[in-house]
């Protein structure tokens, strides 16, 4: 029995079209970490091309989205690695760690009490259902200092351990914890001010 076999390029075109559906998601994922729309789009493009080339390795055990996200994570890590070689995280010397600590100190009184005590946020699921909440969330994420945000997204989005982050960025574990704490405090204060406290 002879069936008409689609040509190789036709297969690729139809697969690329199927993967296109994930582009928006992948770009959002990448923007959060790279904080640069153009760079994020490039990395996603590389990811989709790598996916087409490597489609033989897709086992079908995970969803296509999970598989693509896995490839994207590697591309993002490669990019961050290159970038941290080009612009070392602590390029401005010891001040960096100091300014993180100062920013944290500023939120507390000298006796260690909160200057502005965190209030209850009520039911976060209600916020999650609201489109405007996500606009505020994006804005607050972008307000984080760039270096802090880099460590935060490596931890929370790429889900790397602090050991891995330290190794990638050449910073100490303590510094890493301080930066993560700073990031969370900053995001928290912004969300309370712009959303939950209203």
């Amino acid at each position, binding site marked *: 029995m002879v069936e008409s076999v689609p040509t190789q390029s036709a297969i690729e075109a139809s697969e690329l079209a199927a993967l296109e559906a994930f582009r928006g*998601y992948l770009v*959002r994922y990448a923007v959060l970490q790279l904080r640069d729309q153009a760079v994020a789009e490039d990395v996603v493009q590389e990811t989709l091309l790598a996916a087409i080339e490597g489609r033989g390795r897709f086992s079908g055990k995970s969803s296509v989205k999970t598989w693509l996200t896995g490839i994207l994570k590697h591309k993002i890590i490669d990019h961050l690695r290159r970038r941290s070689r080009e612009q070392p995280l602590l390029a401005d010397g010891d001040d960096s760690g100091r300014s993180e600590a100062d920013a*944290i100190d500023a939120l*507390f009184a000298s006796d260690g009490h909160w200057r502005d*005590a965190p209030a209850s946020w009520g039911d976060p699921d209600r916020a999650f259902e609201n489109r405007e909440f996500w606009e505020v969330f994006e804005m607050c994420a972008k307000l984080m200092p760039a270096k802090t945000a880099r460590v935060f997204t490596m931890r*929370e989005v790429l889900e790397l*351990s602090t050991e891995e982050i330290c190794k990638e960025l050449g910073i100490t574990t303590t510094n890493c914890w301080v930066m*993560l704490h700073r990031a969370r405090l900053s995001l928290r204060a912004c969300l309370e001010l712009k959303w939950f406290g209203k």
Partner: protein
Amino acid sequence: MSIIPSCKDVSELLSQAQDRPLTLREKFALHVHLPLCQACRNFREHLAVIRAAVRRYIDCDDIPR
């Protein structure tokens, strides 16, 4: 950290609890402080909300647009 943990100490521990297992001594500090401090209990909740929000954000399917 001094003998009586302050909100500043506790907030730091709560944050680090998301990144590493705390020592017994640190857990004890939370155990002493949290029942007496609504602000730090709220902060603990906020950390969980932030982590959940990041997950939801990257998983755009269930974000209303």
